[in-house]
């Protein structure tokens, strides 16, 4: 008996020793610092004959976009080593870059060949001392902003796994003279402003189709607010709904088959679903009060909207299958302009708080309410960037309405328009096919 026991003990000891020889101690590391990446971005350099204006344009726009991306803390340029070179992987002195505290190094070079511009970048991991990737873009010199945006989108994809939003566009309403309203497009960093709908009438509430090829808007051209869609590839405009009374606040469903909109009901306005290819609209709400501003959940099963059925405008969420609605905002006497985030976890809206409109976030079930903007002026009409992290809104903080960008944490805000006219009702496009 005791022999068996001894033998067993021996075996156990042997096993234990094998175990300790093979297995190692594991320790848990938690609570990282939540902060931006430290990025070294030395001045853009010419790889051919230098051209000051081009270099400064690219450099300025890239710096601004890197800031708006809100992923980087840019290190002061005076302290950077190896200045004035477009660094290829063989040339990088990682030790020197690591000493500056940089986690990443972005080296950008350009070359002008007649009317052609070549833009290239290399991204390095300074901490580990290895290249991450790089790319080269070639286009007409006049398309330099687009090239910078491509670069930004690729850079962000390399570092976050998700394409950036700099090649997307923002549609907005610009107030022109005599109370006319036009629809314009702008880059997320405020560049390349182009008019889209300018017809001597009032054009409002722009909304993108899910593929980014069409834009809905409401126009008073025929003396009634009718719903139109413009094809962005050829500029052709088509009328979609022209019932007497408003045909406004259109919102395209994520599958592209339906358009939710506000029309005149029996009394006040109600929400309807219009087949995108034409047909009879379905009624969604039937109340004596007014419903407006529908926004789709990304799975297309629910709609958030505004109703004043309790006496003040509040946000509701409707399940489209059961047609049942649930109120989700209870604080504040005026909550409007809901916008469902692209990943579905938030509904942004504009709410009046202490006499001013602020941008709020709330979960679709009404929990976790938070305010993300502060300071002077009103903050209105939020619209989500395709990354689900940035939000564009309009604000009269500087007298007239301008567009600003912030993030879900309330970073920035970065002002992207600065004209004397009002810019309102921004609508951020989805990622546009390249």
């Amino acid at each position, binding site marked *: 008996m005791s022999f068996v026991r001894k033998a067993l003990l021996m075996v156990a000891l042997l096993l234990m020793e094998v175990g300790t020889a093979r297995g190692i101690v594991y320790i848990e590391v938690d609570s990282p610092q939540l902060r931006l990446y430290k990025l070294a971005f030395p001045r853009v350099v010419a790889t051919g004959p230098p051209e000051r204006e081009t270099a400064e344009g690219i450099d300025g726009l890239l710096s601004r976009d890197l800031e708006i991306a809100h992923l980087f803390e840019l290190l002061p340029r005076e302290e950077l080593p190896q200045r004035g070179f477009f660094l290829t992987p063989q040339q990088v002195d990682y030790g020197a870059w690591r000493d500056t505290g940089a986690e990443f190094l972005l080296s950008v070079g350009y070359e002008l060949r007649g009317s052609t511009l070549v833009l290239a970048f290399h991204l390095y991991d300074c901490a580990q001392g290895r290249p991450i990737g790089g790319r080269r873009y070639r286009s007409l010199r006049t398309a330099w902003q687009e090239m910078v945006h491509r670069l930004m989108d690729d850079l962000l994809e390399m570092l976050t796994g*998700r394409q950036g939003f700099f090649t997307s566009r923002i549609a907005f309403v610009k107030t022109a003279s005599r109370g006319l309203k036009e629809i314009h497009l702008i880059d997320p960093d405020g560049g390349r402003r182009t008019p889209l709908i300018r017809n001597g009438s009032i054009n409002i509430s722009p909304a993108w189709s899910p593929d980014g090829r069409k834009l809905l808007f409401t126009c008073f051209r025929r003396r009634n607010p009718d719903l139109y869609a413009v094809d962005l590839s050829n500029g052709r405009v088509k009328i979609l709904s022209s019932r007497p009374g408003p045909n406004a606040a259109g919102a395209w469903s994520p599958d592209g088959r339906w358009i939710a909109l506000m029309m005149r009901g029996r009394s006040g306005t109600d929400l309807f679903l219009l087949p995108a290819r034409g047909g009879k609209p379905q009624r969604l709400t039937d109340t004596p009060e007014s419903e407006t501003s529908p926004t789709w959940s990304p799975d297309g099963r629910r709609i958030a909207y505004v109703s004043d059925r309790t006496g003040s405008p509040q946000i509701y969420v409707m399940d489209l299958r059961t047609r049942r609605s649930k109120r989700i905002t209870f604080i504040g006497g005026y909550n409007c302009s809901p916008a469902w985030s692209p990943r579905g976890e938030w509904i942004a809206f504009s709410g009046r708080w202490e006499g001013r409109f602020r941008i709020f976030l709330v979960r679709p079930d009404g929990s976790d309410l938070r305010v993300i903007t502060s300071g002077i002026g009103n903050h209105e009409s939020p619209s989500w960037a395709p990354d689900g992290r940035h939000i564009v809104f309009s604000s009269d903080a500087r007298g007239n309405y301008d567009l600003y960008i912030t993030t879900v944490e309330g970073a920035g805000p970065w002002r992207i328009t600065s004209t004397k006219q009002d810019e309102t009702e921004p609508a951020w496009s989805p990622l546009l096919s390249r």
Partner: protein
Amino acid sequence: MDPGLKEFMRKPLVKAMALSAAFHLAILLAVEGQQLLKPPKEVILQVSLVPTPPPKLKKRTVKRKAKKRTSKKATAKKSRPRRKRVAVAKLRKKIREDPEQRRLRAIKEIEKRVKEREERVQKGVLDIYLAQLRERIRAFWAIPDVLLKEGVKAVIRVKIDGQGRLLLAKVEESSGDPNFDRSVLQALYKAEPFPPPPGGKPMEVGLVFRP
């Protein structure tokens, strides 16, 4: 059978029985008497000399006493010869062991205890080292909010040399997000050099990164 022969047979048997009884009694006295007469100090000394730990021995004596009180013939018979053997062995040992040997044994015992304590101290030192290592790496681990996801985790195995330099960092279990993995590896490279491992010996540690 012849009665004379019977008597002849009987006589040595009686003698033998008497002798055996006397011998048993002597051994019993030697065993029990030794235990009864020994001062407690000696007991401890004796205990430390045999490999069994003291609390167990105490238990055993208690058991033996209890057994005795409720003793039944069967158990008594069974345990007697073994006890006898043990007692004889002990006696022989005591006779053979001179004070010099006993001292050597005591020294050995002390050495063993010192070694045990050192091992305990070493384990403490290792724990402290691991805590320092964790703090150092944590201080250098930074990620932007974009990379924070529910339940994300990466396991990295590192080899550290005697001076605290990073010899190897291997992703044992990826988080599935190359960017999260990179943030973790960057933390290791930034945290280098680490505090030198205890005793200046190279070591291998597994690090479980969970934000």
